[in-house]
């Protein structure tokens, strides 16, 4: 894993952007660009990281950066990759270009899943990073396919009958690895060296790679700004968000959690789950814990550690 002193001091993600204090995505953008190896083009889907970092005529990106629309970061990345291949073949370009597509959970799990699937199937050489803040935070905290069971959003409110989102979160890593691609990983910004190492690995893979990184959102999760990294760590330590990678089909658990904390430790600091602590919804917390335990056993088994 990368060491702190090995990281470039140069900030390719410039300060002065309009991301919220404590925004996980802003930290993720900065860390991502600490991992690049040379000329890079970042393709951003519509979302927080797009609207808050490139308010014309300003930009926080010291790499080339492109935003086209919400659902197509993977398709745009594919177009860029193909173009450089074509112009290199014609002798008009002779350098390495790394392409990173960056999209939120809405732009990945929901509206962008088709474009992502197509690009993975076609095998374009690019890294796709999904920063997952578990809802459409940019537009006012609406539920997505990545929103966890029980979380309150503006379209899955904590009602008297239905306590938040009834459905469970999609398994993005499993969907991606089902395409037979070489590299898929999960990550948390609390484990910065794990994340940065994975970004570099994903860039170096010859073909598509996907990283699914959890991105705490003080606004949508309703927690204190200074607790973002603490929550990103608790998500891992409660086994809520297991950190693993799949390289050439082989699963590896990157962060072992021998003594997991109960999931309450992760959810109690977040307003989006506060309704679950009402006595009538106590079973919901149990159900979440049960699901976490099941998922952990499944991943351990995949990683050959059970």
């Amino acid at each position, binding site marked *: 894993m990368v060491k702190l002193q090995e990281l470039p001091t140069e900030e390719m993600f410039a300060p002065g952007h309009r991301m919220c204090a404590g925004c996980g995505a802003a930290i993720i953008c900065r860390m991502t660009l600490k991992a690049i190896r040379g000329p890079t083009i970042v393709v951003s889907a519509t979302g927080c990281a*797009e609207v808050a970092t490139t*308010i014309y005529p300003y930009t926080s990106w010291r790499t080339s950066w*492109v935003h086209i629309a919400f659902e197509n970061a993977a398709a745009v990345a*594919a177009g*860029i990759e*193909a*173009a450089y291949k074509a112009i290199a073949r014609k002798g008009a370009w002779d350098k390495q270009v790394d392409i990173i597509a960056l999209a939120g959970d809405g732009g990945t799990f929901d509206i962008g899943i088709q*474009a992502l699937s197509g690009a993975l199937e076609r095998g374009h050489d690019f890294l796709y990073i999904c920063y997952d803040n578990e809802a459409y935070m940019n537009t006012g905290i609406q539920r997505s396919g990545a929103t966890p069971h029980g979380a309150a959003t503006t379209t899955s409110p904590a009602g008297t009958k239905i306590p938040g989102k009834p459905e469970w979160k999609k398994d993005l890593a499993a969907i991606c690895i089902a395409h037979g691609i070489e590299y898929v990983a999960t990550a948390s910004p609390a484990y910065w060296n794990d994340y940065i190492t994975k970004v570099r690995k994903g860039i170096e893979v010859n073909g598509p790679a996907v990283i699914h990184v959890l991105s705490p959102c003080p606004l949508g999760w309703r927690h204190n700004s200074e607790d973002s990294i603490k929550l990103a760590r608790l998500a891992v330590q409660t086994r809520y968000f297991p950190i693993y990678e799949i390289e050439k089909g082989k699963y590896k658990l990157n962060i072992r959690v021998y003594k997991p904390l109960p999931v309450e430790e992760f959810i109690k600091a977040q307003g989006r789950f506060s309704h679950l602590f009402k006595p009538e919804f106590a079973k919901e917390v149990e159900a979440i814990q049960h699901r976490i335990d099941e998922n952990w056993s499944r991943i351990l088994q995949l990683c050959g550690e059970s």
Partner: protein
Amino acid sequence: MAKIVGLAGDEAVAYAVKQCNVDVVAAYPITPQTIIVELFSRYVHDGEVNSEYICVESEHSAMSACVGSSLTGARVFTATASQGLALMHEMLYIASGLRCPIVMAVANRTLSAPINIHGDHSDMMGSRDCGWIQIYVENAQEAYDWTIQAFKIAEDMDILLPVSVNLDGFILSHSLEGVKTLEDEEVMRFLPPRKSVYSIDPEKPITVGALCLTDYYFEFKRQQEEAMRNVSRIVKKVNEEYEALTGEEYGILETFEIEDADVGILCLGSTAGTARQVARKLREQGKKVGVVKLWLYRPFPTEEIVAAIENLKALVVLDRACSFGAPYGALCSDTVSALHQFDKKLNISNMVYGLGGRDITPSNVESMFNEALEIAKTGVVKEPIKFVGVRE
């Protein structure tokens, strides 16, 4: 040296694209199926071109990938029709807004529902305000010639806008014609590799697609409209260069016997051929009729069209798409507006025809001319908008 080969409209487009040395073709071959990209993928797999062909999973991704490719400075092409164009709709505006000189062939077909695979102009008319230059062709020869010219128009530094080359679905796309083709070297001389000023070269970082709110958005759109206003001039310049190479004469529009005509028909695409044939027959009978065919529909050639029709006593404007609830079909609305801008008044009858591929026959066209002659005589337009060839 030109040689004449038998090509269907789709084949003519694919062959032109092959000669235009495109870098990337990103296309989805369905909704409905497009032969153009099937043929192009054959060129790729047989090693006849050096291009990248991305067989994307939808038209939305096709146009997304085209925009990404175009921003690198590459020459980019795609083809679609009907539902596929409708699915691209969002991306059409982004392609023009980001000033990507993409060329797209549209084998015009109708829109669902009810589902129907045949030709009319509903697809492109549904996207007529998307900021693309829109060219309509009459036959396979024009499809070939305009595809080559389209790249040169799109990539001109005074324009940098995408172009759609529209050919009538089935009537042109699937009909075999003799097409006079150029040698590869001639096309290469006419159309050198694309030069690009602003590309997303990672070694000279730029930001493309930033958020522009109330303080800048309007200026971007105003500049885009300014680029549209340059189109007529550049089209004429490109037409002249193309004529010097091929002897083929092109322009903004084409007229037939309109100078001394009492009445005329104004239309787009392959129907112009039928209209001309009927006009020829009526001329022999001493009836003073003429035809105006628009090659360039967007930007709308206001001045040229008014000059062509202003002395007529009556005009029939043919629309092969329905603008539901509008006073006229799209082409007729534009024509009326153009006349109004020049303070001209003309008796106009708008006829909507051929929806869902319904045939338009010479006898249909003959009745239209006769109706126009009647209007010219009486000065009365009984029905400002009529549906021709429909059971009602």
